[in-house]
C-alpha cells in the first residue's frame, strides 16, 4: 500500500514582513483588544494566585468566600510561607487555557504574530516553522488531559458557590459575592463543556452515530455540546473575566475596601 508522495506548494507572491498587507479594514483592532484584556487578566491572576499571598499575606478567604484561584484549598497550613496554596491548583486551569483551541488562535495571533491577522505578513523569524509538530507546541495535544483535570476544581467551585449562600451559620445569605460566585462557576462550566476536546471524546470520534443505542446517546450529547461549542470564544472570555472579578471581589472584601451587600434569610 502506498500513497502518492506529498508535493510542496510552489511559491506564491505574498508580501513578506511583519504587518505587510493590502487590507484596509481595521484587522488589528480585535487582536489588539484581546491582547490587552488577556494580558491584564493573566497578569492579575498570576500575581493574585501565586505572588501576593507569600509576599504580603493578603487573605484569600473571608467571611465564607474563598477566592476561586485557591479552590480546593490544599494544605494551607502545611505549606512553607513562600509557597502560595494557589500554586497547587492554578497549573490546571492555566494548562487548560494555554492548550485551549480558542486561546491558541488568539495568542498565536497577538503574541506570536503567526499570523498577526488573516492575509497579513509575518516576521521573518518564522522561517523555520514547525508549529505543533515539534516541542514545545506539540504539547498542545494533551489538551484533553487538562480538560479532565479541570473538572476537579470546577466541582469544588460549585461546592464553594453553594457554601457561600447556604453554608452560613446564620442561615441563607444571598450576597453579591454569592451571586458573583454562581455567575463565575456557571461561566466556567460553560467554558469547560464547550471544549472541542470534550466534544470529540463524547461523540466526535465516532463515525457512526446511529449504529447502536449507546452511540445514539453519545450522538445526542455530541449535539448538545456542539451547540455550546459554537460559542466557545464567548465562554472563554466571559469566564476569564468572571474569575478575575470573583478573585478581586474576595481580595477587596478581605482588605476591607468594600463590604458585601447581602440579604440574610
Amino acid at each position, binding site marked *: 500500500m502506498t500513497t502518492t508522495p506529498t508535493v510542496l*506548494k510552489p511559491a506564491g*507572491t*505574498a508580501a513578506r514582513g511583519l504587518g505587510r498587507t*493590502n487590507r484596509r479594514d481595521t484587522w488589528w483592532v480585535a487582536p489588539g483588544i484581546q491582547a490587552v484584556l488577556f494580558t491584564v487578566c493573566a497578569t492579575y491572576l498570576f500575581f493574585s494566585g501565586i505572588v501576593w499571598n507569600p509576599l504580603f499575606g493578603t487573605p484569600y478567604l473571608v467571611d465564607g468566600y474563598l477566592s476561586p484561584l485557591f479552590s480546593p484549598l490544599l494544605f494551607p497550613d502545611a505549606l512553607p510561607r513562600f509557597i502560595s496554596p494557589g500554586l497547587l491548583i492554578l497549573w490546571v486551569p492555566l494548562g487548560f487555557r494555554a492548550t485551549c483551541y480558542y486561546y491558541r488562535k488568539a495568542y498565536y495571533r497577538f503574541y506570536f504574530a503567526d499570523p498577526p491577522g*488573516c492575509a497579513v505578513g509575518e516576521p521573518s523569524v518564522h522561517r523555520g516553522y514547525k508549529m*505543533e509538530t515539534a516541542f514545545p507546541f506539540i504539547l498542545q*495535544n494533551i489538551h484533553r488531559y487538562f480538560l479532565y483535570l479541570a473538572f476537579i476544581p470546577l466541582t469544588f467551585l460549585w461546592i464553594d458557590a453553594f457554601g457561600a449562600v447556604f453554608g452560613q451559620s446564620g442561615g441563607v445569605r444571598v450576597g453579591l459575592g454569592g451571586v458573583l460566585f454562581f455567575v463565575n462557576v456557571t461561566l466556567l462550566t460553560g467554558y469547560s463543556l464547550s471544549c472541542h476536546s470534550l466534544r470529540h471524546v463524547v461523540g466526535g470520534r465516532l463515525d457512526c452515530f446511529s449504529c447502536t443505542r449507546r452511540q445514539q446517546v453519545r450522538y445526542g450529547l455530541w449535539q448538545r455540546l456542539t451547540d455550546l461549542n459554537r460559542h466557545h470564544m464567548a465562554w472563554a472570555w466571559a469566564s476569564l473575566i468572571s474569575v478575575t472579578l470573583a478573585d478581586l471581589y474576595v481580595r477587596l472584601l478581605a482588605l476591607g475596601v468594600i463590604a458585601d451587600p447581602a440579604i440574610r434569610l
Partner: protein
Amino acid sequence: MANLLMRIFRGSPKEPGTFAEFEVPVEEGMVVLDALHWIQAHAAPDLAVRWNCKAAKCGSCSAEVNGRPSLTCKTRLSDFDLDEPITVEPMRAFPLVRDLVTDVSWNYEINRSIPPFQPPADTPVEEWRWQQEDIERVQEYRKCIECFLCQDVCHVLRNHEVERPFLGPRFLVRAAGLEMHPIDTADRTGYLKDDGGIGLCNITKCCTEVCPEHIKITDNAIIPLKERVADRYYDPIQMFWRRLRGDRSSAPAAAAPAASDGGDRSS
C-alpha cells in the same frame, strides 16, 4: 451614476507587477466581477480574469479585494466606501499566471495524495446504508466549491510554503469528509500527521473567516481531525486501551491505496 476608482494588479511572472487604475461607472447591485468585466469591455481587453458561473458556485473568480481573499462575484461594491479606490489583486499564495489569474494546479496534485474512500470490501455497493445523522457532518464538508480562498489565506501555505508539506484547509476538509464517513474503513491519521502536516495548522481560523460557503472549517473539520490524530499518537490512555483490546490498528496506520481518481468527490 457615480464613478469608482479601481486599482487592478497587472503583471506576469516575466514582468514586474504594477497596479493599473481604472475609473468604472457604478450601478446599483454591481459586484467586483461586474467592474472587472466593465474594464475588460471598455478599457483593458487583455485583462486576465478567471471566472465562470458568476453565482458563487464554481469557485473560479477568487482574488484579493482590498487585501482580503474573496470571490469577486460575491463581493458587492456597495460594501465599500466608493470614495476610496478598491484594490483587486490575484491570490497571493499561488504562483502568478497573469494579472488576476494564478496557477492553482498544486491543489489538484496534493489532493491525489489523500487516501481515497474505502468502503468495506465485503459489502456490495447496493447494500451500502447509513442514516441521515451519520452523514450530516460530512454533508457540510461537501458544500466546498474549491475556490481555494482558504488555501490562499492560510498562513502556512502563504508564508511558509516551501518548507514542509501541508494539505491546507481545503484538503483537510476533504480528508475529514472521508475519515468521518460512516462506512469508510481507511485510517488516515498516520497520513494526516506525516504527509498531511496537520500539526502545522495552528488553528488561527482565517480559513473559516473567508469561506464563501460558511463551512466551519476549523471547528468542524480541522480540530476534529487533530483530535483523532491525538487519539492515535498523543494520548497514552487511548493507546493503552487499544493495546488492551488487542486492536492492531493502535500501531501507526498503514496507508490506504493511493487515489486513482484524484478528485474523488463521490465519497
